[in-house]
């Protein structure tokens, strides 16, 4: 065993750090550090920077304009970006739809849609969950009925992240109402400017509006926007979900969050001394830091296997559970560290405001961030669903 990075990978890390130091504007990093939500321009700016460098699509094959990095490189890149508080790459086109089109899309679809993802012509969002189909995704009801050279789509999607910025949505729709649950689902690309598409924002617990409902009323979608075979969409959906679960451990986010906790606890005073010197609080921080060290190593073990060609399997469920627990514990610590200074709270703190809230510790919107990050254990397959996936694998003999 050798836990050090290869010389090659160390050089790669240095290259990533140098890029971030040169290209990431400090005011953009500061927005991230203070848990302020980013506007559309921020994301587009960062996508363009990465695209100029050829790093926007780390997981795509070179022939489609990707960097074709292995899992270790991707992990290094994602962790360094998170620690620098760079905007996260909007995953819907790049990490989700891209791989589906590479594998199942027609040549015409690949030629048309993939370059538009890279150059920012299209902003994609994901039409998976519905009000009645959350954890039980295959219960989805949004229907697409064939009418000549079109599908006519009716139904409702929900929890559509950043859908307010999107002009395209990839959807799971039911094309055969008579078929059994997972059969009869198709994968459809829908232009959100088509008549009958309506986006309604959902305000979340932190006052922010990052998710939406998307309603479809007699929306006509050309048949060439069907990906793969009709009624085979569930296969593609599952394929996409395995890609959604890359970087599921969020090690970089946790490291950045832990550094922020220490900074706040160094500024915060208790009886005139820095809070970080309080043994009780220090023990809370230390415990999470130890857990993070171990979890980061678990992540590297799994990533190394993936880089050696073994596809990550059920282990990604373990990583999602532990990774999100640690991230949530860190947001909890930031809130605790701020003490009474965590009380001021307004959606302006999330959206950015001309008159900022009092923040003597420069902690940022720690309460809003704590509440917002409750989502980590709910989305992307709730942690209960992850346990179910792993339990089924573990208890094969018991059923």
């Amino acid at each position, binding site marked *: 065993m050798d836990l050090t990075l290869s010389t090659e990978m160390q050089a790669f890390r240095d290259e990533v750090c140098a890029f971030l130091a040169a290209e990431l504007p400090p005011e953009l990093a500061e927005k991230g550090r203070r848990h302020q939500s980013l506007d559309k321009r921020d994301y587009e700016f960062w996508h363009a920077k990465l695209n100029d460098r050829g790093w926007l699509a780390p997981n795509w094959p070179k022939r489609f304009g990707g960097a074709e990095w292995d899992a270790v490189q991707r992990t290094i890149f994602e962790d360094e970006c998170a620690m620098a508080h760079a905007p996260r790459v909007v995953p819907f086109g790049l990490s989700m739809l891209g791989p589906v089109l590479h594998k199942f899309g027609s040549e015409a679809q690949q030629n048309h849609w993939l370059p538009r993802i890279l150059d920012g012509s299209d902003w994609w969002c994901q039409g998976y969950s519905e009000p009645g189909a959350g954890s039980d995704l295959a219960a989805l009801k949004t229907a697409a009925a064939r009418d000549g050279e079109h599908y006519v789509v009716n139904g409702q999607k929900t929890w559509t992240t950043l859908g307010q910025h999107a002009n395209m949505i990839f959807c799971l729709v039911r094309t055969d109402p008579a078929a059994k649950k997972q059969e009869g689902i198709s994968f459809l690309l829908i232009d959100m400017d088509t008549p009958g598409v309506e986006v309604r924002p959902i305000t979340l617990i932190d006052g922010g509006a990052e998710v939406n409902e998307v309603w479809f009323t007699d929306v006509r979608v050309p048949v060439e926007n069907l990906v793969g075979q009709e009624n085979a969409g569930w296969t593609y959906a599952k394929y996409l979900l395995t890609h959604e679960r890359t970087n599921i451990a969020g090690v970089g986010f946790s490291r950045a969050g832990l550094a922020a906790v220490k900074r706040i606890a160094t500024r915060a005073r208790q009886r005139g001394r820095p809070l970080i010197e309080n043994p009780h609080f220090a023990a809370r921080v230390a415990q999470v830091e130890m857990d993070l060290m171990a979890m980061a190593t678990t992540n590297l073990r799994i990533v190394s296997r993936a880089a050696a060609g073994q596809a990550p399997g059920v282990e990604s469920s373990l990583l999602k559970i532990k990774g999100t627990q640690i991230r949530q514990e860190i947001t909890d610590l930031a809130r*605790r560290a701020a*003490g009474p200074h*965590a009380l*001021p709270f307004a959606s302006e703190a999330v959206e950015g405001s001309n008159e900022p809230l009092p923040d003597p510790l420069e902690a940022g919107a720690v309460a809003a961030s704590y509440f917002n990050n409750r989502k980590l254990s709910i989305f992307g397959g709730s942690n209960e669903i992850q346990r179910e996936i792993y339990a089924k694998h573990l208890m094969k003999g018991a059923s």
Partner: protein
Amino acid sequence: MNFDLTEERQMLQDTLRRFLAEAQGDVWSGLAELGVIAALFSEEQGGFGGAGFDLALVFEELGRADLSLPLIDAVLVPGRLLAGLGEDVSGLMDGTERLALAHTEANGRYDLEWVETRADGDRLSGEKSAVIAASTADRLIVSARHSGAPDDTAGIGLWLVDPDAPGLTRRSYALAQGGEAADISLSDTPGTRLTEEGFDALADTMAAGLLAQTAETLGAMETALTMTQDYLGTRKQFGRPIGSFQALSHRMVDLMVAQEQARSAVILAAAHLDHPAEERDRVLSAAKNILGRTGQLVAEETIQLHGGIGMTDEYALSRFAKRIVMADHRFGDTDHHMERFIALGL
């Protein structure tokens, strides 16, 4: 031994619960008319209650309701402080007046004795932070130090200050749990002295505030749990109510265990409110620590058991969860009270 409410308290609880269930418009005067505010003060202070169990029942009911009323900060804490110093609080009792206590400071964290604001005679200068209900206060009670170091319990006086007094500025902002607070800046601001040595009075009134806060949090936990129980029974996934999955129903049971721990901690605290300070504070610290721990568990788990809908602003659960969690940032958090419990002797 008898854990039942007295007949009078039972009536107050029933009336208050009915009132809050249908409350609309001017809730504040309604509460005054019902005698809810008077129930927070003793007979000698002009009220008809004031005991720990009166406070616990009133604030548990307020906590159960989907409202954000600063009764703790605009009435209970400043009112009991004033009444304890022999001042007339009849304006509070009939609902026509509201107050606020400007005591906490940016460097004070949760330590009651930390006061850096200075008193030069009856002129006050300094910064008070997160003064809840400040913008609706007709009068402010301000603590300031005329002698000693910032962490001395001696040397802290109390003054009544007109919010429009010269040199005073208020900067208001919204709070995570609902309602508002303000940072208050004082510069040679005149006040009317209430007492030269106010620490013991502050400690007594903060004890009442802490008890009220734990009871309110308990009430909010009850509603969050009822909503979750209902949701588990009605939300269907995989063709059946999600509450039929043991992975969820057993967690719901753990939350009910937590709720009963919390309820008992509040009852114990209510019973000790008028005990000697050391005895009282040990039990109050236990209650605040237990409510901090069980409250966080209930807030996080009820959101998780709901899934995405529990994260939305529109659904009431998110408001209860925020009130429960942010209650830990008031009157000393879980860790503060762990340390105080240890300091008072294991």
